[in-house]
């Protein structure tokens, strides 16, 4: 995963979760971010799909446990 992709995922996640981008990192997960519930998780996924023109399969969605995981999946699809 490139740091550019991670930065963009962090920026979009900060917007979705209503959090300061600087407080989000590759290890950020729902346990640490209070506003990261099922609906916001889905909103993040849909926002990323729209931003990158990709679609995540259920199997890929299952692997989205942290922002780093998500950025890695995005990176693998746009490569």
């Amino acid at each position, binding site marked *: 995963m490139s740091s550019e992709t991670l930065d963009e995922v962090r920026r979009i996640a900060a917007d979705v979760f209503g959090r300061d981008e600087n407080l989000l990192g590759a290890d950020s*997960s*729902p*346990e640490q971010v209070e506003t*990261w*519930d*099922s*609906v*916001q*998780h*889905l*909103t993040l*996924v*849909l926002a990323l799909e729209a931003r990158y023109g990709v679609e*995540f*399969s*259920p*199997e890929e*969605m*299952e*692997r*989205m*446990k942290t922002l780093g995981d998500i950025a890695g999946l995005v990176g693998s699809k746009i490569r």
Partner: protein
Amino acid sequence: MAIEIRPFSAEWRNSLREFNARLAATGTPLPEDPDAEMQPGSTMYVAVEDGAVRGGYILRPQTFSIRGALRRVAHFRLPVSEGAVNRAYARVGPLLVRSALQAEPLLYALGMRGFDRPLPRLLGAMGWSVSSIPLFFRVARPARFLRGIRAAREARWRASLMDLAAWTGTGWIGLRGWQWARSLQPRGGIEWDTADDFGSWADEVWGAAQAEYGMTAMRDARTLSELYPAGNKRFVRVRVNSRGWAVVLDTAMEGDRYFGDLRVGTIVDSMARPRDAAAVIHAARRYLEGRGVDVIVSNQSHAAWGAALRADGFFAGPSNFLFAASKELAALGVPATEMHMNRGDGDGPVHL
């Protein structure tokens, strides 16, 4: 270990029990004996992680008539996720929905108890079309109804009725009079009876009516006999010659959150050509009033059935009975007022 979604089998029963216990405070559990608790043709899927159940849902493929053509549409029921109690599993809810959509693109959900609940919010975020199916009610015994509704903890009904009574300008007497006046419209000598089961007459009704609806689940005799088995005496089939029918329930409530201890008549399901809806509603209402119910309720989405209920003295009340259509189903472009959906759809009248 990754979460996998699999059809439920007995090997997951203990894990499912533990899952339901963890989610006990959040609402409806997944059925622990699915074969006994699900509608015919349903399959329950569970999301399993290293032997532990983390979520699940039920799919029931059905045949629908959409603008007269038969299509496969599935009912998406009870998606429940560990994410409701543990944010570490926030991904499970969206995963369940996307998994179901992958299997059945034409998908709908029904009920859901209000727009502010997690499921309709989740589906709305995914671009599903979510709308409420209007609720209609008619007070058959005003004095008992007023006493009963006061006992109910839920104030929405009472507020709604007080508003209506105030609107008539004369309170309960006005309400009763208004219902009576509305139901005096000529009905042209409607002949009706009750039937012990659905026979070939129901196929005739289906054949004549099917193409006149933008969208409706199949209601031929075979399907109806599965939904409303002849052996189940709760279901009463009110038949209006070969023009149409309604399935009604007469339920003595006990401490219900909406109805307290009232005796509630429900027009659960119905089918007729739209122009014959008024005759069916009139017959069903007369039957239920004859049984002595306190109030009669019905959820109906189609404009003709709503108009028939209003013409028979029913009021529209607050509805938290929602219909959600997946993007692909909504893209077929059938307006809600041309869909024939009611409490007989989805998981059926299990809560009535």
